[in-house]
């Protein structure tokens, strides 16, 4: 039966949704540990359920939702990433009011992220954007102090405006094709104006989610105002999901609309601006925020090459996996070290292992082989070159130098002698566990890159 | 043709309700009283309060009247005797009633008076309380009728009136309807005792007359909606259809009017709490029950 097949294919998503519901129930009884346990169990179960489905290429519910390479790997990337984020959240806000609510929201936002990465239909994209967006606003606002509400307010205003602009633009695609399915976008061939309207919409809406220049303004503020663990979560999960959605939407669009070039320009601007801005930051969270803006530019190189290079989709997936691991890890270290650049002073000497882990994350973010980040960047650069965007690849490569400048600003003080105390904090075990997992992923998956999808 | 008939019926109904209300409030049954007080209102001097928002002040009563009339427009008096038999009649009724809130807020805000303002905001709270209890029972009714057309809804009750089929929904709907028409004990916006008339406080003369007329129309509309949704509409033996509708409507209106003054007034917070904690739970249960029954018993 059609319905049964659809539901079976959706098993990971349904599991996650059920877990989220149970988490909310547990939160009603203020059982924060139970909430966490349910969340982790649900994420683990959903991940396991995804494994046998990696080779499936199908759609469910009339083509509106895709179970394919992208959504399969997206689950493998986002679900463990979320699990690690839950640990960080737990470590940071144990015992504070509504801890369980935060945990549940995190899982719900991930559900939205999964919808984005499997979207085969405008409606699913809209729902995904809204689900990730609204949950994120609430997460950012959670501490309810001045900084958090300000961050949430900015995040919300940007999100609401870009989201609604996206919906408005998408209506033109519906007008042009007579269908809300992305698989019908081929019919736009020749309808230049309509194509452009929808494209601008998608770039605005998903570009905001992926914090591309010039829609990135919210990112540093939101990350700075939110709890560090939430910033870590948002910087990886919703961003990766945005690029999965880009891949899902644009891979069916005819390449003749000039959009690859437009996106290439945005990509170049994003990475350059992100690193330049990161160079002058003194707040550690803001610095990583800007650096993650720059990383978005690399993601976009894969998007630019969609349909023109076999490396495009694997590139986005591999880089996303790497990015989730290394950025989460870097944020976990920040959680232990402190939010200010000065807090890193001497950190590598007083906490040698954590310092070494941070170095690994930062080198991986720079793209130094054989770390995971390098593998991702390699795929993306290959995609850009193969798609004929050599200049973009060159800019990407040159920006690695800026990146190095940015990350050396963190690495160098870590090995300076200083008197800064680095007390071990509450929940440090969970955070350190996260660091261990992410650092292993960053180190080892780069070496065992054979398990990753190829072109 | 049917428009004229229904407007006429509505006018008679309004007058009858006015008489009933007089009876309920003053304890004296007087047939002329509404007419005289209407005339008196028209003859009285009209004061325009010092306000910079004249538009809201003027538009409030009119919008209220329009909302009432539009909701009546989708209620069938008898088979074929309906102003517009919309396919989405029940939804339209709901939508029209939503403007009651807008109109009352405008009327409360417009005159720049504290009592009116508080009355308007209170009604907003009241709206938040009753709105779901209008929508959810109607959904259950539509499930049985397989249509949102009010005519279809009446026809679906041929075998058994909805009042017996889904009694929970009926009770909830009536209570909510009393909220919509701010009938006692849920008359917060005009709250006799403490607000000096609330939203009505600044209205005088003809404007007050329009405001009161609009309220009568709304009461009739809600009573007839209750009849349509739960009491089988025009269905009934011996008498012609329109007569049944009229009788039932008056009966419901009388019940609503008589019931209210005998109960203690409900604070808005209490009303909110009751309708969300108890009301919505029951309404959801009602939908579920109707769903199960509709699958099991094909009537």
């Amino acid at each position, binding site marked *: 039966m059609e319905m049964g097949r659809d539901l079976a294919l959706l098993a990971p998503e349904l599991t996650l949704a059920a877990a989220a*519901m149970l988490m909310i*129930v547990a*939160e*009603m009884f203020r059982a924060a540990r139970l909430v966490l346990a349910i969340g982790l169990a649900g994420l683990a179960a959903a991940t396991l359920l995804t494994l046998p489905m990696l080779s499936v290429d199908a759609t469910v519910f009339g083509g509106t939702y895709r179970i394919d390479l992208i959504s399969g790997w997206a689950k493998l990337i986002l679900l463990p990433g979320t699990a690690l984020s839950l640990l960080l959240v737990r470590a940071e806000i144990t015992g504070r009011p509504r801890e369980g*609510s935060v945990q549940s929201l995190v899982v719900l936002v991930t559900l939205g992220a999964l919808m984005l990465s499997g979207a085969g239909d405008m409606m699913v994209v809209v729902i995904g954007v809204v689900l990730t967006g609204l949950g994120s606003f609430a997460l950012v606002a959670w501490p309810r102090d001045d900084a958090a509400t300000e961050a949430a307010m900015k995040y919300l205003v940007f999100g609401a405006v870009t989201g609604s602009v996206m919906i408005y633009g998408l209506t033109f695609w519906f007008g042009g094709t007579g269908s809300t399915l992305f698989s019908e976008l081929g019919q736009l061939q020749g309808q230049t104006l309509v194509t452009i309207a929808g494209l601008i919409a998608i770039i605005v809406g998903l570009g905001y989610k992926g914090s591309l220049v010039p829609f990135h303004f919210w990112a540093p503020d939101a990350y700075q105002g939110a709890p560090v663990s939430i910033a870590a979560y948002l910087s990886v999960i919703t961003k990766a999901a945005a690029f999965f959605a880009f891949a899902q939407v644009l891979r069916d669009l005819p390449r003749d609309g000039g959009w690859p070039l437009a996106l290439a320009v945005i990509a170049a601007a994003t990475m350059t601006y992100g690193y330049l801005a990161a160079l002058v930051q003194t707040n550690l969270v803001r610095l990583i925020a800007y650096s993650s803006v720059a990383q978005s530019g690399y993601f976009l190189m894969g998007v630019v090459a969609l349909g023109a290079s076999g490396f495009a989709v694997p590139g986005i997936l591999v880089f996303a996996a790497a990015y989730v691991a290394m950025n989460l890890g870097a944020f976990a270290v920040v959680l232990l070290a402190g939010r200010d650049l000065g807090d890193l002073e001497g950190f590598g000497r007083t906490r040698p292992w954590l310092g070494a882990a941070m170095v690994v994350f930062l080198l991986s973010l720079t793209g130094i082989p054989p770390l995971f980040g390098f593998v991702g960047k390699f795929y993306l650069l290959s995609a850009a070159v193969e798609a004929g965007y050599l200049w973009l690849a060159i800019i990407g490569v040159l920006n690695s130098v800026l990146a190095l400048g940015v990350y050396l600003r963190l690495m160098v003080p870590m090995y300076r002698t200083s008197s800064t105390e680095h007390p071990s904090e509450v929940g440090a075990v969970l955070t350190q566990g996260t660091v261990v997992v992410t650092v292993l992923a960053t180190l080892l998956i780069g070496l065992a890159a054979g398990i990753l999808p190829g072109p | 043709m049917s*428009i004229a008939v229904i407007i006429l019926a509505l006018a008679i109904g309004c007058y009858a309700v006015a008489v009933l209300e007089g009876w309920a409030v003053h304890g004296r049954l007087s047939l002329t009283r509404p007419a005289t007080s209407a005339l008196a209102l*028209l*003859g009285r001097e*009209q*004061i*325009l*309060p*010092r*306000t910079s928002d004249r538009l809201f002040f003027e538009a409030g009563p*009119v919008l209220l*009247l*329009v909302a009432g*009339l539009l909701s009546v*427009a989708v209620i069938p008096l008898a088979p074929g005797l309906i*102003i*517009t*038999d*919309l396919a989405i009649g029940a939804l339209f009724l709901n939508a029209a009633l939503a403007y009651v809130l807008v109109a009352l807020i405008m009327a409360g805000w417009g005159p*720049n*008076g*504290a*009592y009116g*303002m508080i009355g308007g*905001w209170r009604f907003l*709270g009241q709206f*938040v*309380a009753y*709105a*779901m209890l209008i*929508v959810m029972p109607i*959904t*259950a009714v*539509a*499930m*049985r009728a*397989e249509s*949102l057309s009010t005519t279809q809804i009446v026809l679906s009750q041929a075998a058994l009136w909805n009042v017996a089929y889904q009694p929970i929904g009926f009770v909830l709907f009536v209570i909510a309807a009393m909220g919509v028409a701010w009938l006692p004990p849920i008359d917060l916006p005009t709250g006799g005792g403490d607000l*000096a008339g609330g939203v009505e*406080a*600044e209205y005088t003369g*003809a*404007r007050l007359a*329009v405001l009161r007329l609009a309220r009568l129309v709304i009461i009739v509309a809600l009573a007839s909606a209750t009849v349509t949704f739960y009491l089988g509409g025009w269905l009934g033996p011996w008498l012609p259809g329109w007569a049944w509708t009229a009788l039932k409507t008056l009966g419901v209106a009388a019940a609503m009017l008589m019931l209210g003054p005998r109960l203690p007034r409900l604070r808005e*917070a209490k009303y*909110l709490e009751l309708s*969300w904690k108890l009301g*919505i*739970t029951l309404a*959801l249960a009602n*939908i*579920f029950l109707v*769903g*199960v029954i*509709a*699958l099991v018993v094909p009537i």
Partner: protein
Amino acid sequence: MSELTQYAILLGLTLGTVGLVLSLYALARAIGRARAEPAKDVPATAGTLARDPVWVRYHAKYYGYALLFLAFDMEMAFMYPWAVVYREEGLVALLDMGVFLAILFLGLLYGWSQGALRRQ
């Protein structure tokens, strides 16, 4: 009657209502006008004119409900189409909407447990 006609009638009804009100006002004016007196137009606030407009902030103590209401009311929009085809679809529809309503209800319970249904 086509749908367009139906809505035309409703529009006519609206305009007619406005006309009725205007003619009532005209009638009232015809019956007689009162002489203007100073300070008669003061709003009913114990006979004095408030120094500032009374359009001040009103503490909407029910905003917790209001936010929940926004969500709930919108979800009901999904229920109307479902209700209409409910009997055709049968058990599947019951299950679909059962899940939907269960989640909705869960939301209510959650809000309740977090104190959203409390006088703020």
